[in-house]
Each structure stands twice: as structure tokens, then as C-alpha cells.
């Protein structure tokens, strides 16, 4: 009886593996087929001869490296700023005694409930007036702003738990607050900072709607927007679209392949603390 139950559970879990992974596998097969094969043969057929040409088409026609580079640049600048800015605020919230502290905390908490889309139109007007619409700043700045609430929350939660004795003795030795922050607090806080990095990376790397709203210059588009572009331009070349989607998924899949445990842990930590 117990083994029957166990068998059923394994069956269920295997079916779920198929439903979660098969579409992605199908996409890879799709990307290696000719148009005729995609349209003509049945869905589970494998490509007769892999059409690597689809990948060359996608790579050549789609500014892949350009978009990838833009994504890397925007994401890394955002990450650095989020870490620096939010850890400073988190430290002030968790360690300093000041009247406005609780209010500032509340303001950041509120931010987690605000739907980003509601800010698109006003932000566009603001950016236009500041003459930074359609520049990288029009992405980096809101990305930082929308990433800080959860970051501040995670980091301040951690910093509250750091024993005060460490800082006390450093203070006695004449270290300034800045020094304590830089040489003691930040190094101790590496684990929650990693959580913040993972959460922010996944969100920003995949962000599409702000990029599509604020950016129109070809040379500034990030990868998700670039993918969307490529698909609408090459709508008849199915194989190349498939290839571009695979190329688009590749960077984040590689990162996930090497860091899956860290990423899943980070995402849970982010969810639980958020």
C-alpha cells in the first residue's frame, strides 16, 4: 500500500517535471527546424537536420550582443546603486536613534505595495522635462527606486540582529560611524546582500514594460525589449524567432545553472521577508 502511494506521488511529480520543462525543450527543437517542418510535421517530431542557420539569422538580424550589453550595463549599475544606497538606509533605520526613523521605515514599506505601472505616465513626463527620456538613466533611476524598498527591508532585518558589542568596541577605539559601516557592518551583511542581489537581478534583468515605454533608441534597448522587437519584425521566420528566444533565455539560464541553490534560497528569503 505504502509503495503504491509512493509510486503515485512519483508519477505526479514526474508529470509536473514534464509540464514545466517540456515547453522549453520544445522551444529548442522548434528553433532548430525549418519553417516547413514547423508548419508541416507533428509537434513532437525532432528536427531532421538541425538548422543552425536560424541562430545565425537571429544573431545577425537581432543586435543580440548590443541588447545583451545594454542589459548587463543597466543591471549592474542598478545593482551597485541598490546595494550601496539601501544598505546605508538600512543601517540608519536599524541602528541610529532618530525621531523620523519609524516614519522613513513606513514610507519604504508602503512602496512595496505600489504598482509600478501606475507611475509610468508621470515618470515619462518627469523624464521628458529632465531631458533624460530615452537615455539609460530613464531605466536605471526607476529601477533603483523600485528595488530599494524590499532591499531596505531585508537588510535592516538582518542588521538589527548584529550584536551591538562589535560596534561598541570599534566606537571605543575611535572609529567613525562611516568607518564602522564600511569595515564592520557591510562585510558582516554579505549574505543578505547576496539575497538582495539575486532578487534585484531577476527583476531588473527581465523588466520589460519600463524599457518599452521609456526607450526608443535602438542602441539602448535591453534584452527583453529587444526580444519583443525581434519577434514582431521577423514574424514569418519561425525558426529564427525560436532561436532568438533561446538566445534570450540563455544568459539567465546559465546563471541559474551555476547558482540555482543560491537563487532559489534568495527568492524564498525575499518572499518571506517581503
Amino acid at each position, binding site marked *: 500500500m505504502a509503495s503504491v*502511494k509512493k509510486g503515485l*506521488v512519483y508519477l505526479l*511529480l514526474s508529470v*509536473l*517535471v514534464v*509540464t*514545466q*520543462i517540456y*515547453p*522549453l525543450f*520544445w522551444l529548442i527543437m522548434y528553433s532548430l527546424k525549418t519553417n516547413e517542418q514547423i508548419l508541416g510535421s*507533428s*509537434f513532437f517530431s525532432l528536427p531532421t537536420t538541425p538548422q543552425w542557420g536560424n541562430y545565425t539569422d537571429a544573431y545577425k538580424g537581432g543586435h543580440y550582443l548590443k541588447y545583451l550589453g545594454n542589459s548587463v550595463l543597466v543591471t549592474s549599475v542598478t545593482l551597485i546603486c541598490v546595494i550601496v544606497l*539601501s544598505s*546605508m*538606509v538600512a543601517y540608519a533605520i536599524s541602528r*541610529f536613534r*532618530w525621531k523620523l526613523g519609524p516614519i*522613513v521605515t513606513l*514610507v*519604504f514599506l508602503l*512602496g512595496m505595495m*505600489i*504598482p509600478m505601472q*501606475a*507611475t*509610468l*505616465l*508621470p*515618470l515619462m513626463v*518627469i523624464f521628458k522635462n529632465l531631458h533624460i527620456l530615452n537615455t539609460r538613466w530613464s531605466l536605471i*533611476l*526607476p529601477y*533603483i*527606486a*523600485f528595488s*530599494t*524598498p524590499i532591499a*531596505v527591508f531585508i537588510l535592516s532585518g538582518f542588521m538589527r540582529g548584529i550584536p*551591538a558589542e562589535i*560596534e561598541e568596541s570599534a566606537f571605543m577605539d575611535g572609529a567613525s*560611524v562611516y568607518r564602522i559601516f564600511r569595515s564592520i557592518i557591510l562585510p558582516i551583511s554579505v549574505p543578505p546582500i547576496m539575497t538582495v542581489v539575486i532578487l534585484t537581478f531577476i527583476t531588473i534583468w*527581465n523588466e*520589460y*514594460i519600463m524599457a518599452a515605454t521609456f526607450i526608443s533608441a535602438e542602441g539602448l534597448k535591453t534584452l*527583453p525589449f529587444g*526580444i*519583443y522587437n525581434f519577434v514582431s519584425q521577423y514574424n514569418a521566420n*519561425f525558426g529564427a*524567432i*525560436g532561436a532568438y*528566444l533561446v538566445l*534570450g533565455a540563455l544568459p539567465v*539560464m546559465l546563471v541559474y545553472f551555476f547558482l540555482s541553490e543560491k*537563487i*532559489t534560497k534568495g*527568492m524564498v528569503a525575499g*518572499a*518571506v521577508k*517581503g
Partner: protein
Amino acid sequence: MNVLKVPARTIAVFVLPCLLLYIGLVFVPIVVSVYDSLLDWDSINKAKFIGLDNFKTILFEDTNFWPSVRRTLMYAVFSMAEIPICLFIAALMNRYVRKANTLVSIYFVPVILSVVIIGQLWKTIYNPTEMGGMLNGILTSLGLESWTHSWLTEPKFAMYCLYFVSLWQYFGYHLLIQYTGVQNIPNEIYEAAKIDGAEGFKSDWYITYPMAVPIFKISIVLAFIGSLQAFDLVWVMTGGGPAHATDTISTHMYNMSFLSLKYGYGSALATILVFICLLFTVVINFVFKKVEAKYT
């Protein structure tokens, strides 16, 4: 010394850069949005103050508003309905699979991909037969040719197809959260229950599920708030079409603001969206306070 007493200037150095950026780019736009919602303002005419007229039009005349509210709430209901299933599966995994972490990280793969990729992938899956859609291919090979449809262009099916993609993408996310929660229940409790004669499904019912309420709540809140903001997936896959059949509050707002260029009207919809998000966050927290008080 638990907290440092530092000069105001130091606090300012630590807090202001981030706070100003954050207020300027998150709070100010919301306030501006609320103000703009009181204007009759489009791309051609100068803005004119009209009080609450936009809201009146939205609530009583906009034939697309209430259906998109309904779809947004349905989105939330479907997303939340997935979570008990995830908890159930998490409990099963915890009992029957020794090293389930690998399994969970496989289920998690769709979560890390961009909605643009997920959306395009599923668009090709839903494609009509003559365009090589996988779903129709499966149905045909099962001899169910009469069931094939052009899924995303038939208003009857389009929205359900979108709900499904969302469920598919976030299944791994919620399963991961629930599994982590279930794993953290101390083993001693199960051992004590075993002595009292509760094993298997009985121990799930009396121990796992009640003890998972806090983590269950986290998933519910995430799914709910996420669905209220449902935008990217719909935008990438259908843009709200065919004939508004898949519009949600946010896509309706985006359409009005950026395609119809009715800025005032779009801002009023944005204001309503913010209000609904804040309202439901409060309601959900209230409900769970009651539930938690009952079970713990």
C-alpha cells in the same frame, strides 16, 4: 548601547540619497497621477480641470472597465487557487522524496525567465494548427481535431489561456515557498504525533497544514498583489485583445495612457489601480490576522 546617537548630518548622509530618489520616482509620480486624474488632458488639447468627471465616466460609462476589473480579480482567484495545490504537493514531497531540492529547482526554471520569453513561447504553443501550434498538435494527435482552436484570437478562450500561462510560470515559485515552509516544521512534532497515532495524511491535516498558515499567507499575498498588477504577460501575448477580451485594469490603463493618449483618463485608471492595491493589501492582512488567531 543598542542604538547609536549620531548627529543629524550623519543621518542625512546615510538616508537622504536613497530616500530622495525613492520619493521622487515612486511617491511623487503617484501624487502627480492622482492630480492628473482630475484633468481633461490628451495629446492635443491643453489640460483642463474637470474634477471627478473621469472617475464618473470610468465607473458608469466605460464598458471596458468593469469587465477588466472582473478579469483582474479572476486572475487573482486563479493564482491563489494554485497555492493550496502547491502546499499539498510540498507536503507530499516532504514525506516521500528524500532529496527534493533538485526537483524544486527544476520546477522553478520558468520563474527566472522574462515574461517576454514566456509569453512568446506560449504564443507559439497556442498558435493555430496551420502555424504549427503545439497545443493543437497534441489535440490532433489524440484524435481530438474538433477541439482545436485559434486559442488566443477567440475571445471565449483567450483569457483562460493567459491565466494558465501565469499559473504555469509561477507554479515553481509557490511550490518552492511552500516546500521551504513545510521543511521548516520541526520533526519532533511529527514524532510526537506518531506516538499519538497520527501518521501520513492525518499528520498533514493536523500538523502540516495548520503550521503552514503563515507561509501560506505569504504566497497568497504575493499571488494576489502580483495578479492585481497583471500586465506584462497580457501585454506581450495579446495586448488586451481580441476586442478587449483580455484587458485587465493595468492594460486598460496602459492602452488609454499610451495608445489612446488620454492622459487624464489613464491617470484616473492608474489612481484606481493604486487604490485597489492598497485596499486589498489591508483586507488580506486583516483576514489572515483572524485566520492566524484561530490556528495558533
